[in-house]
Structure formats: structure tokens, C-alpha cells
């Protein structure tokens, strides 16, 4: 996370008391940063190790605006001091209350927590729980804290930073440099390491640079079965330094502003400027993905973070193509907003930003590189469609008699839904084929698979109803009612216990079902498109975070995501209802006026 987003987050979080331990401020860390380490199943530069550790513990890689490598060195060399520093944030007041932690404090030190009885008890209890049961939010929070403590302990005990390569086995674990080097350190590595510690304490710039160079040279001289090529290390450092995805969303925000201006001033030459901005955003995202692909050695499409990147990329790519094809000024505006939103969410949500080892099933297969991009581009297109659907709602609610505008927006919306649905279908098909080659079954009713089909059926229903100009005969309504009532009679016993909430949900579902089949016209299509997009949201995040089951749930989150989804969903519902109400009032006023006008 970059400094810019830190500013954003600072508004949300209670300020952290600055540590009163002065860090050395004159050191040049450039050399040290590029030293290769073995970490988390890869060989990244020390910079990445530091960023990952410090972000996982404190929630922010540039902790207190310090260089991550510097902080990691401080934790390693001066562990006794840093054990007493407040590093681990627990922002949730409820969690603090449950764990009997002080109300007023939000960030805790390693030594605060490691001796805190209620926390340790809860950790022990959670770890020895019945494994078949899902974690409750408190338990997953507690395990998260435990994980942070374990990581910190690893750094304090000098177990994490592994710089000495194995001479014989390329896959064997690398070794760490012991902190207390032997008295007569003849070994060059130990000597340089001891020197590094000394110059670090003394804040000696030149000595530190010299020691870093010596250390790097000494490590390089060791026999190694494998050592990452310097080019790869350089690529990763470039990636860490430029943070291309943060950059990309600033560019896209700028692009959105320019598109808004273009919409207002309606000049051809300005459209070219907008197009350039759009291409710039796309280029930065592509560059970031290309770097990440090189670093990981596989397509970056394995988890929620990486798929969000593809969402942003797909939006920009599709927008460029469709802007050139359709030349509608709405296209770059919606695309820039959506792309910026996706990349911003990827950047600021508490998602894992680091390249991790992935499940064997995701490796060594062409299908991941086919399936994930198709799905993500389809989500991007459908996300654009939902933005346009909102625009349609607003414009029809505010100006219901401007049918020319409504028709133009409707046509744009239709293209997006059509292309999005086709891509979604292709995504489901490629996913099914991947499943067949990995597990032997082309369809296994896995929740993720089912939900993507659910969303696809939603869009198919929209397209079919839109094409339908036949009046539903009376017996058709009877048939529909019989089918629906029978369906609910069969299904509802399985959803026991029937709570008032569930009754409301079922009634809402029934209303939505009727609306989907019987609701025609532009306004109804826009509303349906919004509803269908919520099915996509459910597929994309809900299955992992709300249902939390099935083969696709490789990552698991807590209740926070579900709460966010629900809140946003209800806000959108309220918005749609409001627009619908205004639209209906306007229309009835118009209907009331028009006969009079005709008579006049």
C-alpha cells in the first residue's frame, strides 16, 4: 500500500501512537533491499520479505512511513525493544471487549499480547476446536492475531530471514545468519552481518553501505544449488517500488474526470485526450500484470486480489475497444469509474497483496490462463452494464419524457449485457472443461459453479424477456403461478427454521421472480440488470465469504465482507426503489397531462 492510500485509511482508523524508539535515519538500504532470500516458497528480494512481514503484522507495509527493510532490520537486531512497541492493531472494539483488552488502546505490543491470559486461552481453545465446524468471527480474528504473533516471534527469533543458500539441493530450506556470530568470525558472511548490526546501531551511513555490499558479495560467493537470477530480483524491486496498480487507479480516476468533462463540452479533440487517458490506465495495469506474471512465474489469477486486478484490466480493455467501435461518450466515463473502483478496492481492501504459493490444481494448466481472464472480462463488461443501468434509472426518473436519451442508453446497455452474458457463458464453459480435466467431472454442483450459472441464467432471462413481444396468455399466468407455488411448497420445508427474516426474503424473491418475467420496458430492464449484477457479486465474493464452502473457497474471510455486501446491497435496493417511485410519479403525472394536452 502506498502513502496515498495511507492518507485515505488514516481517516478511518484511530491514530497510532508513534513509537518513541528512533530508527536510524541516515542509512542507505538500496543494496540490502536487493539481497535474495528464500521466503514463502519463493526467492524474493529482502525488500519483499520486509514488506510482507510488516504489512501482515501492522496492516501497513510502510509502517509509520519507514522503509520496510529498515523496520525488518530493527525487529531482527533490536528485538527486545520492539517486543514492547505497539505493532499489532486490533481496531474492532467488540473484539477488544471479548478479549478483555483495554478499551482505549487500539494497537498492542507483542509483549502486551503474549502474556494476556484471555487471548492465549481463546487461541488455545480455538486451535483445539472441532475442525468440521466453521470459525465464528471472533475465532477467526483470534487466529489472525495468533498468526501475527507467530510471525513477529519468527522475526524476533531470527527464523524468518533466510539468506544462506543450500549448496546441494535447490529445493532445500535456506539458512538464517545467526545473530550472535562466533567470536572470531572468520567467515565473511558472519563478519559482514556483525558489521551490519554495529553500523545499524551507530547510524553510520558509509559503514552500513560498506557492510551491505560486503554481505551481498559474501552471500553471492557461497555455493548455491539455486539462486534467483538478478534480472528477476530487479523486476520484483521495480514492481515493489512503482506499485503499478495504485498508480493505475490514480490514472483511471484522472481519466474519469476527463471523461466527465468530455461529456459536458462535447468536443471531438477532447475525446482523443480521453482516449489517451484510457489507454494510459490500461497500459499501466497491463505493465503491472506483466511484472507480476514474471515474478510469480504463472498468470496472476489465483486469488481475490489478482482477479480484481484482472477486473480493472478487463474494464479498460473492453472500454477502449467499445469506445472505438461505438464512439459513445458514456463509455470512457463508466469504464474509468469502474476500473478505478476495482483497482482501488484491490489496493485498499485488506486482501493479500503478495505472491503466494498456490494449490497444485491451479498450476501446470493452461485452463487458468483461459478461464480466469474470460470470467473477469465478462464481470467487467457486466459491471459496466450495471453502471449504465443506474444511469438509465436516474435519467428516466428525472426526465421520463426524453425517450431519445432513454433509447440510446438502453441500446448501449443491451450491447453490454449481451457481450457480458456471452463471455460469462464462455467462462462457465471453460471452467467446466477445466473441472473435467482436473477432477473428471464436467459439472459437480460446486457452489461457485452453481452461482455463476445462477447469474448467467439471470442475464439469459433478461435477454429473453427483452426479445419477447408475445402477450402472455391467461393460462400462462396460471401455469407460472402453479409452478411457483409448487416450487415454494417443495423448497420451503428445507429452509427450516422459517424465521421472519426468511419469510421476508422468500417474499422478496417471489416478487423479484414475477418482476423478472413480467417486467418489460427500459426501466424494468435496467432494474433487472442491477439485480442480476448482484448475483455476480454473490458469485464473486459471496460464495467465498458468505457461504464459505466448496472446492473454490481457497481463501476464507470473516463476517466483515458479508456485512459490507449486505449494506451495499440494501443501499442499492433503496436507490432503485426511490428511482422507481419518482419514475412512477412522473409517469402518472405525464399520463394525466397528455389527454388534456391532446384535447387542447
Amino acid at each position, binding site marked *: 500500500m502506498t502513502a496515498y492510500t495511507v492518507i485515505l485509511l488514516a481517516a478511518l482508523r484511530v491514530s497510532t501512537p508513534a513509537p518513541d524508539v528512533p530508527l536510524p535515519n541516515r542509512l542507505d538500504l538500496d543494496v540490502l533491499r536487493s539481497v535474495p532470500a528464500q521466503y514463502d516458497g519463493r526467492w524474493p528480494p529482502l525488500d519483499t520479505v520486509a514488506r510482507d512481514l510488516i504489512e501482515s503484522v501492522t496492516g501497513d507495509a510502510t509502517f509509520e512511513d519507514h522503509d520496510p527493510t529498515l523496520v525488518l532490520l530493527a525487529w531482527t537486531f533490536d528485538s527486545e525493544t520492539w517486543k514492547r512497541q505497539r505493532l499489532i492493531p486490533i481496531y474492532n472494539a467488540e473484539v477488544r471487549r471479548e478479549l478483555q483488552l483495554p478499551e482505549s488502546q487500539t494497537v498492542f505490543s507483542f509483549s502486551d499480547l503474549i502474556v494476556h491470559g484471555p487471548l492465549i486461552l481463546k487461541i488455545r481453545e480455538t486451535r483445539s476446536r472441532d475442525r468440521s465446524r466453521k470459525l465464528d468471527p471472533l475465532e477467526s480474528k483470534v487466529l489472525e492475531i495468533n498468526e501475527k504473533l507467530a510471525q513477529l516471534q519468527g522475526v524476533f527469533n531470527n527464523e524468518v530471514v533466510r539468506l544462506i543458500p543450500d549448496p546441494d539441493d535447490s529445493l532445500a530450506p535456506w539458512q538464517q545468519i545467526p545473530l550472535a556470530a562466533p567470536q572470531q568470525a572468520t567467515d565473511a558472511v558472519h563478519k559482514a552481518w556483525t558489521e551490519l548490526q554495529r553500523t545499524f546501531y551507530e547510524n553510520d551511513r558509509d559503514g552500513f553501505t560498506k557492510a551491505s555490499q560486503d554481505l551481498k558479495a559474501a552471500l553471492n560467493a557461497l555455493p548455491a544449488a539455486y539462486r534467483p537470477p538478478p534480472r528477476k530480483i530487479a523486476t520484483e524491486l521495480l514492481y515493489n517500488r512503482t506499485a503499478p496498480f495504485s498508480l493505475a487507479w490514480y490514472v483511471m480516476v484522472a481519466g474519469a474526470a476527463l471523461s466527465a468533462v468530455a461529456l459536458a463540452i462535447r468536443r471531438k479533440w477532447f475525446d482523443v485526450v480521453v482516449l489517451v487517458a484510457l489507454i494510459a490506465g490500461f497500459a499501466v495495469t497491463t505493465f503491472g500484470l506483466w511484472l507480476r506474471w514474471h515474478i510469480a512465474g504463472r498468470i496472476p489469477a489465483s486469488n481475490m486480489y489478482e482477479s480484481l486486478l484482472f477486473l480493472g484490466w478487463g474494464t479498460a480493455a473492453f472500454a477502449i475497444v467499445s469506445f472505438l467501435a461505438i464512439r459513445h461518450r458514456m463509455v470512457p466515463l463508466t469504464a474509468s469509474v469502474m476500473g478505478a473502483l476495482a483497482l482501488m478496492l484491490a489496493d485498499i481492501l485488506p486482501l493479500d497483496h503478495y505472491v503466494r504459493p498456490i494449490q497444485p490444481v491451479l*498450476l501446470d494448466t493452461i*485452463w487458468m490462463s483461459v478461464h480466469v481472464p474470460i470470467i473477469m472480462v465478462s464481470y467487467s463488461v457486466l459491471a459496466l452494464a450495471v453502471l449504465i443501468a443506474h444511469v438509465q434509472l436516474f435519467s428516466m426518473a428525472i426526465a421520463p419524457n426524453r425517450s431519445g436519451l432513454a433509447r440510446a442508453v438502453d441500446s448501449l446497455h443491451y450491447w453490454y449485457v449481451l457481450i457480458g452474458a456471452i463471455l460469462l*457463458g464462455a467462462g462457465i464453459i471453460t471452467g467446466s472443461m477445466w473441472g473435467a480435466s482436473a477432477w473428471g467431472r464436467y459439472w459437480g454442483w460446486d457452489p461457485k459453479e452453481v452461482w455463476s450459472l445462477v447469474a448467467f441464467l439471470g442475464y439469459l432471462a433478461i435477454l429473453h424477456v427483452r426479445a419477447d413481444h408475445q402477450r402472455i396468455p391467461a393460462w400462462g399466468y396460471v401455469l407460472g403461478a402453479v409452478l411457483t407455488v409448487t*416450487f415454494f411448497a417443495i423448497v420451503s420445508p428445507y429452509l427450516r427454521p422459517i424465521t421472519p427474516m426468511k419469510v421476508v426474503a422468500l417474499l422478496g424473491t417471489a416478487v423479484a421472480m414475477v418482476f423478472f418475467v413480467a417486467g418489460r420496458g427500459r426501466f424494468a430492464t435496467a432494474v433487472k440488470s442491477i439485480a442480476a449484477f448482484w448475483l455476480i457479486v454473490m458469485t464473486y465474493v459471496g460464495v467465498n465469504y458468505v457461504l464459505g464452502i466448496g472446492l473454490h473457497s481457497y481463501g476464507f474471510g470473516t463476517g466483515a465482507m458479508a456485512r459490507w455486501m449486505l449494506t451495499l446491497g440494501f443501499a442499492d435496493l433503496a436507490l432503485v426503489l426511490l428511482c422507481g417511485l419518482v419514475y412512477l410519479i412522473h409517469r402518472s403525472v405525464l399520463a394525466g397531462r397528455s389527454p388534456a394536452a391532446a384535447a387542447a
Partner: protein
Amino acid sequence: LQSETTRSNAADPLLSLIRGLGSLWLAAMLLILLLVAMACATIYEAAHGTEQAQVVFYKSWWFELLLWLLGANVLLSLLLRFPFSKRQIGFVITHVSILLILVGALVTKVLAVYGRVTLSEGQSTSSFFDSDRDELTIRNMAKNADASIVLPGSVFHGFKQATKPTVPALGLEDVHVAVEEFLPDSRWERTVANDNDSFNPAVRLTLSPDDFDSGVWVFPDQQGSDGTGGVRLSVVSDEAEWSAITHGETPVEKPEELFLRVQYKEDQYEFRLEECQKQPQAIGHTGITVRVLRYLPHAQVGQGGKLRNISDQAENPAVEVEIAAPQGSETRYAFSKYPEMQFREHLIEDLRLTFVATAPPPLVEALVAPFSPDTFIRFAPGGIQQAPIKIEPQQPVATPWHGEALVLLERLDHTSFRWSLTPIEPPRDTRIPAIRLAITSGAETANTWLQRHKSKTLELNSQPYELVYTTKRVPMDFDLKLDKFKIGRYPGSMRPRSFSSTVIMTDQQTGRSETREISMNRPTTFGGYTFFQSGYDEQVMTSTLSISSDPGQPIVFLGYITLMGGTVVVLGIRIGERRKGQAAVTAQDVDHPATARSPLAPPPTSEPEPQTA
């Protein structure tokens, strides 16, 4: 024109019905119903598990009915538009593809076989377990004749108890087997009675005096199970020893001894280690023998899951045992420190091996004698036995452990067990279904409960029979041997990066063999079956392969490809139309209600492809 159409439709209700069944609005209704059904299914699955969701939703009659209706709707929509115009090509391709996919799914449902097989290195098999079908087998063990039936899925994969479910007739010679009852999930429960003719003592003890109802039953020769770890009941039959106990004398230490305990079905056998090392020991009259190949006082799991000994200290005593049975032989390990660790049953089922070292004295030892009504208790805090104390029923006795008191709740001298199978409601995620069988031979009838993956032997009209209720075994006409199993790891960690099995397939007729490699995402096909790497067990180095044979899959894949092609055609036609600047047509489409010239072939202008608008 419109009123004319309405009239012509009204005149022929059948045509109106057919047009309705092939209509877009019915398509939309069915799509929405399927959508909601699947959404409900995933919510149900989150609470009740995958297996139940499959039975209740995806494989239920009504879900299938919805799919049939959808298929009929698509088919009729095609027929109604025949003959097709040029601009309907996309519509035809996509909708024929949907039909293809549905037909493929139907073929899969009827003909596909999915199964799995677990092998350790060097092991081979010529059959696998079908994961979707259960089988009931009766075997006459004297004549080596058998008969089987597949238990139909509707009941036996269900989650409701059923009495007298319909099953195909199962008969062997003059013996008939009928399924009387089905329980979706069951557990054997033991009740203790005091009606045994011979002396068979038992005590019920508790460490929490508030809890007089529960406590644990402790029986002689039972240790470490039922959560009674550390509590033992010893029967003293020697009067001199008893007299020493009643006088509160501290016992002398016994030398340590090692022995192998074998449980086969309901019987238990014990052999001293030295005997087992010298020569194979027969397990009763089962035809099975056990022999200790190696004794490892300090065992450690080394490369490739193989055990090696690293010192003479009895740190982790283990034995490598060869078990020879008529059906073949296999090698297993047993650890004295981990008696609960049982390696997976491969060849010889129902056999449990435990390696027992006369462990340090139990923390709590209850002592009884056949000739005395008294009960004594001996504590051994820190492994050192204290002098015995007399314990009276219901009277708490202080223990050496702080604040804890031991209570003897009950003592029985003539214990007998009754086992009864009880249903578990609601069924667990990993459930054990059970069936009650009535086996009739002439005038004789026997009744028995049988849980899945279990067998039962019984004698009827002086013939020995075995009943087996397990997953259906599918024979292949070739042998499958696991030659090697490899786990690749991420550097510097134990996290697996890849796993692959090298297998050798040998045709049973020609004897020709072929070596294949199977890894994640890289299946191999042989003899009509496709093999996938699906899992592994690192502890015992076994590889699990899933096996499938699905004639529906090519049909579905063909449907997939034509569907993708069809959507591209649809998109192309749409774009072409837009290019031609037919904004007027679109406007017309939207503004004009349905018009139809002929009820069976509606004109393409008034009813464009359902796929698009």
C-alpha cells in the same frame, strides 16, 4: 391483424398451447425457477453439507422435471420457427447446443461411472469403488458362491429413514435377503447389564462428584479407549496377591514386555514380540498369519514415508508387520505410543494392529477379585504406584491430584453388553448408513443390522454366509499398479506444489503393459477409463486416483463448442444489422406488439431470436 391472430389462436387451443410451451415467456419462467432453486440449494448446502444438497435439490425429481421442461421449451421453440431464415442461424445453433448439452447430461446421468481407488507404491488392483452406487452381497463361504444387488439410489442415498424399501430380489440358492429398514445415519450403542453367568467385573468411575449420572465404564483388558485413558480395571485371581492389596502393600515393579495385539472382526489375539519375530503366528482359524519383520525401538519416518530406526532407546517403539491372508499379503506399521493410529485397510479389512508395550502403570487402577466384594484403588502419580486404598460405592476418595476426588459409582460382577444400532438425527456430514436385513432359508430366518462398509457372517441351515454392504466394486479388464508416487514441494517449505503417480497398466488378456504418468490436471485414459490424480496421504504414502468413464462428456463438450460458436454467430449478426444502420428495425421491434402470420411459423421480423433482441 392483431384481433385476427387472437381469434385464430382461440379457435385452436392446442396450437395456442404448443406456442405457449415453446414461448419466450415460459423460457424466462423456467430460467428464473432454476435460478432460485440453485440459489436455495447452495444456501441449504452451507448448512447441511454437499451430499444432502445433491439429494434434496440437484438430483431431486422436481429439479429434473424443470430441466425436462426447459428442454421441451427449447425444442418446441426450434420447431415453431422451422423453416429457419438466414438471420436465425445463430439462434438455431445456440439452441441446438443447449439441447445437446442437456442430452449429454442425461447420458452422463444414466451411463457414467465415477469411482476412486487408493494404492500404495507397489500395490495393484483390477477393480475400483464406484462412488455413486452401493451394493449388497451375500456369499456362501463354504461353496464360494455369491450374489449381489445394487441398492437403488433414491432410498439408499436419501436422508429419510425407510421401512421395507423396494430393492431388487437378492437370492443365493434357496436363501433370500430382504431389506427391512434403512437408516441414513447410525451408531452402535452399548448398554451394560448385570446378567452374565460367569464373573465379568466392571466399574463405573468419575472424577467429578457432581456428575453422578455419567462417569465412565471401565472393563478389564480395556485401556485408553472411551476417554478412559489412564484408568484400568485389574482382576486379581491370586489370593496371596489380593491379601497383599487389602493390607495396603506397595506392589513390586514388573519387567517391561512387548506384545502385538491383533483385533480381527470381533475377536482379539495377543502375541509376545519374540514369538512373532521367530515365526508367523496364526490368527485363530481365519487363515491369516502375522509376522514381525522389524522391531524399531526409536522409529522415525524418513524419506518416502519409510520407517528407520535411529537409536536403541525405546523412544518411539514400532514394528513392521507382515500380514498374510489367503487373498494376499501386506505390510503395516504399528506404534506403541500411538495405538489409535491405524493405517488404512487395504487388502485385509476389519483387522486392527496394535503394538503394546507394558506401559507405565495406569494413573488410576481399580482392583477387584472374584472372591471378594471389595474394590481397591491404586493411584500412580508421576508413574510411581502408591499403596492401594479401599473404595466404597458413592464415597468420594481423595486423589493425589489437587482438588479432585474419585467416586466409584457402580460395580458389577456379571457384566454383559448389549449392542443396539441407533439412528442419528439429523444425519452427520460423514454419516454411516445402515440396513436391517431379513435372511430366509427354508423355515429359518435371521435378522441383522449392517452398516455401510461392514460385513457380517452368520450360519443358516448349517451353511456359513457372509453379508457385505459396501460401495459397488467395478471390475476392469486390466491391472492397475502404482509404481511410484512423488510429491513436489515449494522450495524451503513442506507445502506441496505438485503430486504425480506413475502407474503401470497391464492388459489381462494380452499381458501387455504400459507405463503412464498421472498428475494434477494431467489425466490419462486407458481401457475406456480416465484416471485423475485426486489426492494422497503423506503419512502412508498412498495415492488416490479418481476414475471416470463418461460417454456423455463428448456430447456435452460438442454442445459447449457449438454453443460458443453459436453465440459468436449471434453477435456477428447483431453487429452486422447495426452496421447496416437498422435503427429503424430496432425501434419497430420495441414499439410493435406481437404479430403472427402463421401460428406455427411466426415471421422472423416480429419474433427475432430469443437470444437477442
